[in-house]
């Protein structure tokens, strides 16, 4: 397996075993970015020199017996997160020359954990879009099919991870901006509960809904990143002061006894038949593993407005392939807590349903439902 294909978990284990160094991995990923990103346009800034210096520092820390939980692991930050000394554009011409004077809390915590920033990911301008076609820096391509959108607004993050330009990327979600691009790129997207991750230094879109999360290729990596990112931050007045569970330690736990809510209205008209079938399949698998499901009624769902109504919904659905090939790959969301994801994922894989069934697409499908009603 090439170095660029490894997940964050595999990198941590490989560094630990001395199989390779962060400098080697970082160089391999920078080479891959240089060789392929002109086709994807997933990155707006590549911080190659800074990345190599950080990788050297991480290797030195490890040699000295130190280093954080993500020591030496390369990743990409969505360009909505402020990065000290590095351009933070938010996908807009207005901020094209903005050099942030400080780091976002998410950036700071990941750096303190030893993560190596490779660059900044392209995104819909100010995160206001769901196709990544509104960026000042041009559209991002879906690595599975360059004619299609990777979704948005965290499309650069999702495309980078899917194309193996990095094992993980930070992302943000107001009304689907992590979950929908994850669904369209065969990656794992996690939007944590509001208040779990600090929004300090994260350029606001809709402050009471915005939340920072992750795009990775495995649920395990989502747990590894969230473990570092989550937690109280006095610099964000809406940050919640609750203990952070040990997500990594709880990976692999059983779903037996877990109660899962299934919202009846999300399966009404407007839901793509393939997506609906995949969600049903996943529910069956979870039930076979001992979870119980409860039908939940949300009679006023018609009155809910999706936070990121795209201006051109039909184009989005067409280009993203929800009605085409990507749709048939069918990503679905389950209401399983993040700390149980690994076990669910493994068992789904065994059942032949596919690992990425856990990519969070439920809201995307439901939102599609709402869009259609809204646009009628």
């Amino acid at each position, binding site marked *: 397996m090439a170095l660029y294909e490894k997940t964050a978990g595999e990198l941590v284990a490989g560094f630990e075993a001395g199989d390779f160094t962060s400098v080697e991995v970082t160089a391999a990923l920078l080479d891959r970015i240089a060789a392929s990103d002109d086709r994807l346009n997933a990155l707006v800034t590549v911080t190659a020199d800074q990345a190599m210096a950080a990788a050297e520092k991480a290797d030195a820390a490890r040699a000295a017996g130190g280093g954080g939980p993500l020591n030496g692991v390369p990743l990409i930050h969505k360009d909505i997160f402020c990065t000290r000394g590095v351009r933070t554009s938010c996908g807009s011409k207005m901020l094209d*020359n903005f*050099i942030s*004077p400080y780091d976002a809390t998410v950036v700071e915590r990941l750096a303190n954990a030893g993560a190596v920033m490779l660059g900044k990911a392209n995104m819909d301008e100010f995160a206001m879009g769901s196709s990544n076609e509104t960026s000042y820096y041009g559209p991002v391509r879906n690595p599975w099919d360059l004619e299609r959108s990777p979704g948005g607004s965290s499309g650069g993050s999702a495309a980078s991870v899917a194309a193996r330009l990095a094992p993980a990327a930070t992302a943000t979600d107001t009304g689907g901006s992590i979950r929908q691009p994850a669904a369209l790129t065969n990656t794992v997207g996690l939007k944590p509960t509001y*208040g779990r991750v600090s929004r300090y230094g994260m350029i606001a879109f809709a402050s009471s809904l915005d939340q920072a999360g992750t795009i990775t290729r495995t649920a395990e990596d989502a747990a590894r990143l969230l473990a570092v990112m989550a937690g109280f931050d006095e610099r964000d*007045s809406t940050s919640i002061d609750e203990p952070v569970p040990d997500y990594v330690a709880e990976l692999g736990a059983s779903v037996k006894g877990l109660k899962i809510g299934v919202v009846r209205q999300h399966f009404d008209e407007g839901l793509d038949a393939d997506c609906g079938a995949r969600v049903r399949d996943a529910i069956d698998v979870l039930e076979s593993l001992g979870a119980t499901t409860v039908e939940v009624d949300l009679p006023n769902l*018609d*009155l809910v407005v999706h936070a990121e109504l795209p201006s051109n919904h039909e184009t989005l659905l067409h280009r993203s392939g929800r009605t085409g090939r990507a749709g048939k790959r069918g990503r679905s969301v389950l209401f399983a807590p993040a700390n149980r994801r690994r076990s669910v994922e493994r068992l789904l894989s065994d059942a032949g349903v596919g690992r990425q069934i856990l990519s969070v697409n439920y809201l995307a499908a439901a939102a599609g439902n709402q869009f259609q009603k*809204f646009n009628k």
Partner: protein
Amino acid sequence: MSLDKDQVQHIATLARLNLTDDEYAESVEKLSKIVDFVDQLSQADTEGVTPMAHPLDAVQRLRPDVVTETDERDRYQANAASVTDGLYLVPKVIE
């Protein structure tokens, strides 16, 4: 309730937007849909529904009134097009 072209023209003027006739037609339709949806919302039966401000019952947190910011003037000024003696210089907009 629907908006008419005059109302949209007034909004466009306030927003200093120059719209073509086609864009007016589209804007009238889109903005009307939003207003219609708000009408739908205002008709919703909320009798007996307890308002929820925050799912975790969180309240606005206060902090001690102390200075936490450090002096970053030079970094901030580095982003400006034109500065002098610690001031930001901008084009004259008022005669």
